């Protein structure tokens, strides 16, 4: 098992190397465009262009350029943005990580719980009114755009009903660090959590219901019923337990993608300085070093989440243990 895990770790490093090369090539070796002009940003002066060309070694061969870039990203960590004059890219990204992790982590707790509840109840009451009501609700949840939901939440909690007892506790938009004020952190994030989780509760509820219904048709469910153990145990201990495989796979991918900047809309709407918002702003100003850093950071999280899913798999599915 340890061997399998270190094998996976090695694989991960390789994948990340591949991603960094591809990302680098897209930004620096696209034919017909001068990367220095893009790095320097719009309307850059001639002196800046020369400086950029020198800084990034753009007059040297591609492998050297790649090496220099990676050195600045990971070793000296002094990659600077030219658009936002002198802004250090790496501290900006590392500063944004706790915000994004707080947002996505909290939302993940909500959507996993919500998805489990919706999926199990709908699966168990299949075909009844409860099932249909839950499925319609989750379809609505899936269809509602997150930025619209966020704006409506803001409108109600920040303005229209802010002075009523219901939402007077809601702090102004923005992030409060957990270490500074845990209660404030919670209050600032609880509405973004629900906003971000809505889509995923619907999605996970529907997927889990489908997978649960499929599992409940399996032969081993009949065996379990024949044992005389009661329907609740059949459903949870045999049906749900075997359905979790699909659930965990999805969770790993979604969590990785969200932490890697996918929560962009929620972060922008709620004014949270997370990785998504950073990417969003960098894209608006075509801040190439920043985009490169966030892309590589995002890929790291997606790959990492995949690795964690593989490890969790070993625990939930014994069949995965004997592979390799």
């Amino acid at each position: 098992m340890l061997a399998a895990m270190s094998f996976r770790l090695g694989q991960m490093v390789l994948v990340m190397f591949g991603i960094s090369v591809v990302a680098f090539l897209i930004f620096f070796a696209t034919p017909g465009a001068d990367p220095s002009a893009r790095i320097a940003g719009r309307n850059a002066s001639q002196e800046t262009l020369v400086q950029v060309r020198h800084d990034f070694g753009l007059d040297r061969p591609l492998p050297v350029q790649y090496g220099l870039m990676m050195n600045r990203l990971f070793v000296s960590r002094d990659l600077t943005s030219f658009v936002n004059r002198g802004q250090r890219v790496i501290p900006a990204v590392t500063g944004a990580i706790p915000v994004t992790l707080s947002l996505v982590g909290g939302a993940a707790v909500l959507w996993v719980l919500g998805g489990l509840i919706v999926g199990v109840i709908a699966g168990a009451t299949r075909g009844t009114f409860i099932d249909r009501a839950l499925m319609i609700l989750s379809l609505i949840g899936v269809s509602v755009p997150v930025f619209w939901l966020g704006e409506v939440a803001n409108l109600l909690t920040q303005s229209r009903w802010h002075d009523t007892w219901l939402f007077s506790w809601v702090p102004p938009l923005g992030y409060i660090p957990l270490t500074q004020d845990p209660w404030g952190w919670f209050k600032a994030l609880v509405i973004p959590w629900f906003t971000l989780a809505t889509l995923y509760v619907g999605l996970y509820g529907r997927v889990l219901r489908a997978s649960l219904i499929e599992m409940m048709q399996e032969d081993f469910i009949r065996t379990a019923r024949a044992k005389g153990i009661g329907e609740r145990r059949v459903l949870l201990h045999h049906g749900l337990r075997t359905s979790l495989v699909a659930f965990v796979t999805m969770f790993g991918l979604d969590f990785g993608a969200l932490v890697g900047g996918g929560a962009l809309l929620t972060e922008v709407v709620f004014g949270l300085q997370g990785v998504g918002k950073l990417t969003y702003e960098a894209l608006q100003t075509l801040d190439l070093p920043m985009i490169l850093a966030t892309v590589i950071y995002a890929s790291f999280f997606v790959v990492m989440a995949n690795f964690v899913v593989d490890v969790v798999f070993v625990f939930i599915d014994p069949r995965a243990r004997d592979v390799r």
Partner: protein
Amino acid sequence: MSVNAPLLVVEGLTVSFRSDAGLVRAVAGVSFAVEQREIVGVVGESGSGKSQTLLAIMGLIDSPNAVVSGSIRFMGQELVGLNRRALDAIRGRQIAMIFQDPMSALTPVHTIGNQIGEQVRAHEKVSARAARARAVQLLDAVGIANPDRVVDGYPHQLSGGMRQRAVIAMALSCNPALLVADEPTTALDVTVQAQILELIGRLRDQFGSAVILVTHDLGVVAQVTDRVMVMYGGRFVEEGRKGSVFRTPLHPYTWGLFGSIPPMDGERPARLAAIPGAPPSLSNLPKGCAFGPRCAFRHDACIVQPPLVGGNGHRAACALPETSRKFHIREVASIETPV
């Protein structure tokens, strides 16, 4: 309940499914009894209603479109329409089932020991440790070589024969009075099949269980059962002691079944006799005797469903006069099964 009372009495059991083609009767009013410590074989082609009969006894027909009617009395208690809680107190404890496909009958994510222990603990107040010890004991009893290891293994780590043994061990975990086995050896290769059958035969001696063994393999029936019931189109067409049915089968369908077994010795037939035609579709059963359209001896009387009648506990549902049937047996035997 007297000592001689039958363990299981089924009367007029009907299992139907609502479908687009109307009500489809998978089991059309069957009646039979199983004595204590008796091994009964139920034979028939696929779709003859054998499995549905077993599932009805287990209360495992849970399709919302299924209608189960008639009466199933087990140790005097009516099982049809019993609520889930009372049913759960009986199944697994008093009646246990062995399923056809051992590859899919066990939950893939739990260990063998946990799955056996789960059943034990559902019916008896014992500790997890005691349940595990019982599981090891049971695995040993069904002939698994290293029960201490297998008990902590997962289903995918075992071969088909081992899994079927595990399923049997699970079925036996609470010493059930009745064991129903739905083609327990179909998915296994021949040597394993023989071992499993021997095991089922031994159960009665060790645990005193009665067994209903569903199969489409007459060799299996010959090997272990006391009594044979032949099913066709959702009904019993013949029923009797094994010796009696094998020596003088009374129903043309049974003749056909025997005719399609290759002989052990003598001249090898150029081709095996097959029953002409295909089993009837349950949604469109022929009028009268369901076997009629495939029967070489069909005549006018077959337009009415014949009753299951006969002496000496050997009954058949055939409209042929008994005397002419005796004649036909010889005829059929001389052509198709040179013994």
